[in-house]
C-alpha cells in the first residue's frame, strides 16, 4: 500500500469504528433502544435456572426431606464446607435403632460452588438454589442448617 493509501485506509477504518459506536450512542441517549444492562434493584433480576447460588435441601409439603445422614456429601466436599451431625434413634416402624440426620450444617462462606456434594449424594437430597441475596453483615449468618426444624426423612427413600 502506498503512503497516502495507508492514510486514507486508516481514516476509513477509524470512521467505520466511529460509526459503530456512534450508532450505539445516539439511539441510546433517547433511552429508547440499546441499553442492555438491567437496572437490578429497580427491575427484578433474571437468574438462569442453572445458576449456583447456594446449596439447599429439598423439603416436601409435609416437612420431609430425603437426607439419610450418610455423610457422602461431607466426604466429597473438598474444603469441609459441610458437616453432618447425626444421631441414633429408634425407628418407630421396625423398633430398631438407626442412624439418622440431626443437623446438616453448611458453611456458605467456605463453599466454592463446585457441585461435588450434590453429585455425591446418593438420594438427591440436596440441590442448587438460584438465590443470590447472600450478603450479610455477620459471617456467622452464612453457616446454615439445611434441614428445617422438625423435619424428618421421607418414607421410602432408603429402599
Amino acid at each position, binding site marked *: 500500500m502506498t503512503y497516502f493509501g495507508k492514510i486514507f485506509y486508516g481514516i476509513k477504518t477509524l470512521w467505520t*469504528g466511529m460509526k459503530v*459506536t456512534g450508532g450505539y*450512542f445516539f439511539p441510546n441517549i433517547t433511552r429508547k433502544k*440499546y*441499553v*442492555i*444492562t438491567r*437496572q437490578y434493584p429497580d427491575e427484578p433480576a433474571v437468574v438462569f435456572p442453572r445458576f449456583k447460588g447456594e446449596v439447599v435441601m429439598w423439603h416436601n409439603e409435609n416437612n420431609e426431606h430425603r437426607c439419610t445422614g450418610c455423610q457422602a456429601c461431607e466426604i466429597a466436599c473438598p474444603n469441609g464446607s459441610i458437616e453432618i451431625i447425626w444421631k441414633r434413634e429408634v425407628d418407630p416402624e421396625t423398633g430398631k435403632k438407626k442412624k439418622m440426620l440431626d443437623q446438616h450444617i453448611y458453611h456458605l462462606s467456605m463453599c466454592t460452588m463446585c457441585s461435588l456434594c450434590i453429585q455425591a449424594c446418593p438420594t438427591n437430597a440436596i440441590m442448587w438454589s438460584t438465590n443470590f441475596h447472600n450478603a450479610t453483615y455477620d459471617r456467622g449468618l452464612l453457616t446454615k442448617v439445611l434441614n428445617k426444624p422438625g423435619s424428618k426423612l421421607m418414607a421410602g427413600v432408603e429402599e
Partner: protein
Amino acid sequence: MMNMLSINIFQTWLEQTHGIWYVLVLAGIAAIYLGFFAVAGLMLVYLERRVAGYFQLRLGPNRVGPWGLLQTIADALKLVSKEIFVPKMADKLLYKAGYYIVIIAALLALAVIPFARQIQALDFNVGLFFISAVSSVGVLGILIGAWGSRNKYSLIGAMRSGLQMISYELSAGFAIIAVVLMSGTLKMTGIVEAQKHTWFLFQGHLPAIIAFMIFLISGTAETNRVPFDLVEGESELGAGFHTEYSGMGFAFFFLAEFINMFIIAALGATLFLGGWLAPFGITDGLPAQWLWGIIWFLLKVFVLIFLLMWFRWTFPRIRIDQLLTLEWKYLLPIGLVNTVIMAWMVWKDWLIHLG
C-alpha cells in the same frame, strides 16, 4: 516567620503599586479560576463516565442526585477523606511538588483562554505561544512526581509521557502555526476577532481542515488519552505515573488530566471554530453579549470534548512504536507540507472570506 515576611513584602509591594482593591480583585479572579478548575474537572469526569456508558450500551452513573450529577462530588469527598500516603523511600519534596506543577500548568494555560469578549484573565500579545509553552510544563510535573515516588512503573510511565509530549508537541505546533499564518497574530483575542466573518476552519479550507485534524490527534496524544494512553496500562505499568499517589494527590492528577482535555478543546474552538463568536452572527444584536459569548464558546468546546470522548471509547490503544510512527512518519511531514501550502495560500490570498 520567613514566610510571613515574604508575603508581607509582596503585599506591601502590591498595595503601594496598585492599591488594596487591585489585590482583592486579583484574589477574586484567582478564586474564580480555582473554582472553575474544580467544578469543570468534576463535571468533565461525570460527563466522561456518562458518555462512556452510552457508548457501551450502559447507563453510566445515575444514582447519586438527579441523573447521577452528584456522583463525582461524592467521589471527590471520598478521595478527600482518604489518607495521603507517601512511600517510605520517596523523595517527599518532589513527590508532593508533582501534582502542584501539573495543576499550576493547567491553571496558567486556562488563564489565557478567552471565554468571551473581555472575559479572560490575561490577554497577552503572545498568548498562543504562552499556552504551548505552559502546557509542556505539565509533563515536567508528571516526570517529577514519578521520579519522586521511586517506583519503576511510575518512572517508565512518566518517561513515556515525556516522549509522547515531546513528539506530539511538534505537530501540534505546526497545526497552530497554520492558524497563526492566517490570523497574523499570537494574541488570543486577535485570533478570534480575525474570524469575525469566517471561521479559520472554513477560511483556510483544505489545509485548515488538515491542520484541525492534526491538532485533534496531537491534542489527544498530549493529554494522554486513549488511543494514546501509553502512560497508563494496567497490564504493564499499573496506573503509570500516579501508581504511588492516593487520596487527593491522585485526584489532583486526575482533575488536571480532564482540565487539560478542556484546554485542548478550548484551544481548538478558539483557533478553528471562532471562539466566542456566534455562527453567522445570529445572536449579535441581543443584550448580554458576554453571556452569549460564554454560551457559544462552551458549546463549541463541548462539541470538541464530545469528539475526543468519541475517539476514546472507539479506538483501540496503540503500541509505542506505532505511536512514534504515526508522529514522525505521518503527522510531522504532513504538518510541514501543510504549513508550506498554507503560507503559499496566505501569500496568494486564496483564503475564503465570506461577508
